[in-house]
């Protein structure tokens, strides 16, 4: 709480709780939330609680394009507000990029290659989003409302690997070793500088003493501020011979990796992701697959949704919007749908090629964004060797190989039987290259590269499936490639209501592009403004 806050609750006789109750009573939930944020009680998300739109003019029709997160939220909330809602989606399923592949599923990518998912029952791959941060309050609220069970996603696993194919003979290191050693070496260096009085500026003599105490504790340094093999450092990085019972061998301390090797191998980079806001603990996944929540919302709005609807044209006039579409399986059966208003959640990668009449600034934005690339490949293994042999339960191994990541299932820990690994999670230019290969080659590469880290692949691999987002017919890319410059140019123009059309989706979020929360917040914001426009004229 800031003392200078206009809502400062430091006035005598008024408790913070009383103040919040008063604000809530007078100004409603959204103001309460904002006040809570100011007072430091709530933070992080701009989700302001369930929206309550009401008073839709009777018979007002809204067409929602897309049945991913943004479209489903719009359909659900606008229906509840009293609108006549219809939803069109290109796919033969609800959920958009919030998608889960299971055994028996068939997937045909652009270019025409079809893959049959051969996973055993209960095993799955989330080709798109796969984790929900604790501060994505919109997604969490819908998951709760629709009774979707969550379980922890291990973003940071101290025993997962960090791997450089070009260092340490290509042998992977454990995350705990890299982290303990990097912190330890940095603490030692800083302690040296402190002891040599090289930190004069900004650090008082008294603070230097405190800093030394902190560095020794943080880095597991010895009494001379040295980071070296010892039981103290092994308590962080792990032992050469671990602790045991009875007449088992006595523990033996492990030997740290040198600072030079850590720097030249870049392994320290793998320490950062779990510290970044969007990946910090706690972070979750839905039990059973990421499509659980969209599917649950979908059941609620099922009667409003037309699947396999390939939108070709969106034409507005001063009275309404006409959407022309065909059957996406056959390219035939042209139909038109007329509504008073349109919420369009079609990704810009696709919308930029559709015939839509919006104003110049919005049209420039629709055509102004490239789409990012991402590739995920799931591999079914005969046994959970990462647990049985390597003591890795969930989490992510980072590598400099083109597969970039290997992620372990965050469910069914310590159970016997099979499991599905995420064998590739590639971004960037390397993902473009991977995505240019046929699915079979992508799977084979995932197995070949992964074998360098887990030799067990050679005997335990059974089958795999690969999704390259640029080749997903209903997405044509992973997420809009915003940067600050593009945002200054196009963002506000894209987010405005243009006549009778408003756009929504994760592409219309600030810094939440590619996140389900971005789609939810964008949708809630768009339909709130649209409703206001409709009601107030």
């Amino acid at each position, binding site marked *: 709480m800031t003392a200078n806050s206009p809502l400062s609750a430091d006035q005598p006789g008024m408790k913070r709780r009383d103040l919040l109750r008063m604000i809530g009573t007078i100004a409603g939930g959204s103001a309460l939330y904002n006040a809570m944020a100011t007072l430091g009680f709530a933070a992080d998300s701009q989700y302001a609680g369930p929206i309550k739109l009401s008073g839709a003019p009777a018979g007002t029709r809204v067409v929602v394009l897309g049945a991913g997160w943004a479209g489903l939220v719009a359909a659900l909330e606008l229906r509840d507000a009293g609108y006549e809602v219809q939803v069109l989606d290109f796919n033969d399923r609800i959920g958009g990029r919030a998608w889960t592949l299971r055994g028996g599923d068939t997937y045909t990518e652009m270019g025409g290659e079809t893959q049959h998912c051969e996973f055993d029952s209960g095993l799955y791959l989330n080709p798109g989003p796969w984790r929900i941060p604790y501060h994505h309050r919109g997604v969490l609220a819908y998951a709760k409302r629709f009774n979707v069970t969550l379980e922890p996603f291990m973003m940071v696993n101290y025993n997962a690997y960090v791997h450089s194919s070009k260092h340490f003979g290509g042998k992977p290191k454990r995350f705990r070793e890299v982290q303990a050693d990097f912190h330890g070496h940095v603490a030692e260096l800083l302690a040296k500088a402190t002891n040599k009085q090289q930190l004069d500026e900004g650090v008082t003599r008294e603070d230097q003493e405190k800093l030394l105490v902190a560095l020794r504790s943080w880095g597991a340094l010895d009494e001379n501020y040295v980071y070296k093999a010892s039981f103290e450092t092994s308590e962080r990085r792990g032992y050469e011979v671990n602790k045991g019972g009875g007449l088992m061998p006595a523990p033996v301390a492990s030997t740290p990796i040198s600072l030079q090797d850590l720097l030249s191998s870049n392994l320290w980079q793998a320490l950062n*992701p779990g510290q970044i806001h969007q990946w910090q603990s706690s972070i979750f996944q839905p039990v059973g697959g990421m499509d659980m929540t969209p599917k649950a919302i979908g059941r609620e709005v099922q009667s409003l949704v037309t699947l396999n609807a390939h939108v070709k044209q969106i034409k507005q006039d001063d009275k309404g919007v006409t959407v022309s579409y065909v059957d996406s399986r056959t390219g035939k059966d042209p139909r038109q749908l007329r509504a008073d208003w349109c919420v369009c959640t079609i990704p810009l990668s696709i919308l930029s090629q559709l015939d839509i009449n919006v104003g110049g600034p919005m049209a420039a934005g629709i055509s102004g964004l490239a789409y990012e690339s991402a590739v995920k490949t799931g591999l079914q293994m005969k046994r959970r060797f990462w647990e049985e042999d390597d003591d890795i339960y969930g989490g992510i191994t980072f590598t400099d190989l083109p597969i970039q990541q290997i992620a372990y299932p965050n469910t069914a820990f310590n159970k016997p039987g099979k499991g599905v690994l995420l064998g590739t999670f590639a971004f960037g*230019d390397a993902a473009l290259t991977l995505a240019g290969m046929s699915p079979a080659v992508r799977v084979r590469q995932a197995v070949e590269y992964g074998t360098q880290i887990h030799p067990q692949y050679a005997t335990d691999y059974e089958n795999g499936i690969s999704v*390259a987002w640029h080749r997903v017919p209903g997405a044509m890319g992973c997420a809009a490639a915003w940067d600050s410059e593009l945002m200054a140019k196009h963002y506000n123009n894209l987010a405005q209501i243009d006549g009778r059309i408003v756009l929504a989706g994760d592409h219309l979020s600030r810094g939440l592009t590619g996140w389900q929360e971005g789609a939810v917040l964008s949708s809630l914001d768009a339909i709130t403004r649209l409703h206001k426009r409709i009601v107030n004229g």
Partner: protein
Amino acid sequence: MKLTWVLSCVLLFEWLSAAHAADAMKPSLPGVGQGKAFVQTDGDELYAAACQVCHMPEGAGAQGAASYPALAKDPRLKAKVFPIARVLNGSKAMPPFRDVLSDEQIAAVVAYVRSSFGNHYTDRVSVDDVKALRQ
């Protein structure tokens, strides 16, 4: 999805560098440094690495909810400035490659596409042609 998700244009896994971290609109990605992704120099290899994902083998193009244009027998390739400008600047959802491919690489891949997939444009594509359009 960043689908946590979004991507760099210069060096793969530069995401954790100060330059990218400074742009909060470009979400960071986890990883261990890999250096420059497009190291290829030959046109056919560059096509496979950077273009084939969308334009497909043999420049066949593809259809989804929208389409990736075919490059096979493409009369638009006659004037070499067209493909050079497209590769440099991108178009709609196609990303610009100006920061990830050198002038030499762009000349090589454009020359390859103009002389493959049923295209037979024989005039040379030079590094200077690319340089001239880079501004």
